[in-house]
C-alpha cells in the first residue's frame, strides 16, 4: 500500500467508524483490454481499452447510442461480450458466476431509472444486499443504511416506499443503496438524465461529495459542469469506440478531435 493510497485518506477524512478499512495492494481498479461486443449484428463496442487507477474519476460522454451504458454494464457484467478482457480489482470477469458475484459485491452501480425495489421501503432497499450478500447482522446493516441515508441527506425518508419520493430523492436512495455494500468502485449510468431540472443539483452534489472522499468512479453523463469539477480524465465515445481520451482541462479548452469539438459545441450552447 503506497503512501498516496486514497483509500486511507477516505477513511481518515470522513472519520467513518462504520467503514471497515479496506486495504488492497492493487493500484489498478479496472482494466479493459480489446473489448468488443455485438448486439446481434450491431457492433456496439469496438476495441475498447481503458485502465482506471484506484481513486480515479472518469467521465464518459457521447451521443446516445454510442455505447456508454453498454460499456459500464460490461464492468459488472450485467452485459456479456464476445471478445476482449475485463479485469476488475484484480479479478478477471469470465463465465464463472462466483467471480461475477465477487466483482458485483465490490462494484456499486447507479442507473438512469434508479431501479429501486418498489415493494421494499427505503431502508429495506438499503439493507437487502448487506444482509444477504455480506451476511451482515440486521441491526448493523440498518445502522450502516441510516449512516449512508444521512450522508445523501435523506435520513428522514427511511421508512417510506420509493414511490412516495421525488425523482431526485429516489436517485439519492439508489446511491445510498449502492454505498451500503461499501464498494470500492462506483459506476454511474446517466444518473441525472431522467430527473426534473430542479433535482439534478442535489444528485450531483451527492456525487461530488463522494468524489471528494476518494471513491473510484466511472460516470456516463452529459453534465459538463460536474465533469469539469470532478473528472481526472474525460472520454468521448461515438459509434462504439473511444474518440478522445484527455485531461479535463485539455478536453474542454483544446479538444483534439473534430468529433469532440462538434459534440462540445452541441452540448455547451
Amino acid at each position, binding site marked *: 500500500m503506497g503512501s498516496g493510497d486514497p483509500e486511507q485518506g477516505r477513511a481518515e477524512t470522513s472519520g467513518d467508524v462504520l467503514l471497515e478499512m479496506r486495504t488492497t495492494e492493487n493500484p489498478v481498479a479496472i482494466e479493459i483490454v480489446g473489448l468488443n461486443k455485438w448486439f446481434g449484428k450491431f457492433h456496439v463496442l469496438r476495441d475498447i481499452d481503458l485502465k482506471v487507477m484506484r481513486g480515479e474519476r472518469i467521465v464518459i460522454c457521447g451521443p446516445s447510442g454510442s455505447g456508454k451504458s453498454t460499456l459500464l454494464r460490461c464492468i459488472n457484467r450485467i452485459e456479456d461480450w464476445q471478445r476482449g478482457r475485463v479485469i476488475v480489482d484484480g479479478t478477471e470477469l469470465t463465465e464463472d*458466476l462466483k467471480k461475477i458475484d465477487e466483482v458485483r459485491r465490490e462494484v456499486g452501480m447507479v442507473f438512469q431509472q434508479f431501479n429501486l425495489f418498489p415493494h421494499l421501503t427505503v431502508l429495506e432497499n438499503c439493507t437487502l444486499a448487506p444482509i444477504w450478500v455480506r451476511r451482515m447482522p440486521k441491526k448493523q446493516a440498518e445502522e450502516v443504511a441510516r449512516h449512508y441515508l444521512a450522508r445523501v441527506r435523506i435520513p428522514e425518508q427511511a421508512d417510506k*416506499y420509493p414511490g412516495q419520493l421525488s425523482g431526485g430523492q429516489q436517485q439519492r436512495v439508489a446511491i445510498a443503496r449502492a454505498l451500503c455494500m461499501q464498494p470500492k468502485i462506483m459506476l454511474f449510468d446517466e444518473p441525472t438524465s431522467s430527473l426534473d431540472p430542479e433535482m439534478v443539483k442535489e444528485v450531483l452534489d451527492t456525487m461530488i461529495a463522494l468524489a471528494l472522499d476518494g471513491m473510484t468512479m466511472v460516470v456516463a453523463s452529459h453534465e459538463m459542469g460536474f465533469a469539469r469539477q470532478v473528472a481526472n480524465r474525460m472520454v468521448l465515445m461515438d459509434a462504439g469506440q473511444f474518440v478522445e481520451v484527455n485531461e479535463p482541462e485539455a478536453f474542454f479548452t483544446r479538444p483534439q478531435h473534430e468529433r469532440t469539438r462538434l459534440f462540445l459545441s452541441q452540448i455547451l450552447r
Partner: protein
Amino acid sequence: MAADLQAPFIRRALLEPEPPPLAGGDALTRGRARLFGGVFNTVLTVASAIIIAALVWPALKFLLIDAVWTGASRVDCLPETVGREVGACWPFIKAKFVQFMYGFYPASEQWRVDVTYALGAALLAPLLIPAVPYKGTNAILFFGLFPVVAFFLLVGGVLGLPHVETRVWGGLLVTLVISFTGIIFSLPLGVLLALGRRSHLPIIRALCVIFIEFWRGVPLITVLFFATYMLPFFLPDAWRIDALARVLIGVVLFAGAYMAEVVRGGLQAIPRGQFEGAMALGLGYWRMMGFVILPQALRLVIPGIVNSFIALFKDTTLVLIVAIFDLLGQLRAAFADPNWATPVTLFTGFAFAGMIYFLVSFGMSRYALLMERRLNIQQPR
C-alpha cells in the same frame, strides 16, 4: 386579471387548498338521479328490478318459506303428507350430514378429522389476518408442519391411532384434502416451472416447456383416469401407491402447469431494470428472484392465482369418475337412498352443495381482493 391579458401578473399570496365541492346533494337525491335519470335509465332500473325479483323470490320460497325443516324420512317431505307445495327437504341434509362431511370415515375416529380442521383453522386464521405478527413462523407451521400432522392424524397407524384407509374417506373431507394439497403444492411447483421456462439453461428450459405443455394439453379427467386405472399396470406391485395419493399427485402436477403460466405472466411484467438493480448488488439468482422479482411478480398476478385456486377447488368434483367420493360424489350416492326419494331431494342436495362451494370460492375471491387493495395502499406506484 382576465381584464388585461397583456399586463404582467405577480401573485402576492399563494392560494390555500379548498375542499372539493359536494357532488349532487345527499344519498337519496344522488340515488334517484342515477337510477331514474332519463327514460333509458328508468327502463334499465325497472327491468333489473323485475329480473332480480323473478330470481330471488322463487329461491327464497324454495329454500325457506316452503321448506320442510323437521322429519325422519321421505314421507315428511311429500306434498301429500305436508298438505301444501314443498320446497327444500332439509331433514334429508340433516340425516346425511355426517356422510357429506366425512364419507365413510369410521364414526369413532371422526374426531380426528375435526381436530385436523380445527388445527388448520387455528393456523390459517392468524395467517390471513394482516395485523397478527409472527407471519414467518406461522407460515412455516401452516405450510410445513400442518400437512405432515394432518397426514398422520387422518391416515393414522402411528401413536396408537388406528389406520383409516383412504378408500373410506369421503365428502367434504376429500374435497378439502384434494384442494388444500393442490393449492399448497401447485403454487411452488408453478413458480419453479415458470422460472425454469425463463431460464438461460437450454435443457432446463426445454424440460419445463415440455412439462407445462404436456399437462396443459391433457384434460384433468384423462389425468385422473390414467393415474387411477392405467398407472398400476405400468408399475410393479411393490410400488403400489394409494389411490387417493395417485389422484393428489395428478392434481398437483396438473394445477402446477397452469400455475406456471400464470406466474410467468407476472415475471414478464417486471421491468428489466429490477433484474439489473438486483444483479448489480451481487444478489445472485435465487436471492434476486426470492426477494426482488417474485414478490412483485406474484403480487401482480394475485387475481390469476386465485382464479386457479377457485378452478382447482371446483375441479376436485371430477374425482367422482375414479370412484373417489368427494362432497358431490357423496351427495349423488345419497340420492340413491330410497328412504329419501322425493321430488325435491335432488334440488335440496344440489342447493346445499352449491352453497358450500359458493361460500368457499366467494370467500377466496373476496380475501384476494382485500389483499390486493392492502398491498396497493402499502406500496403506491
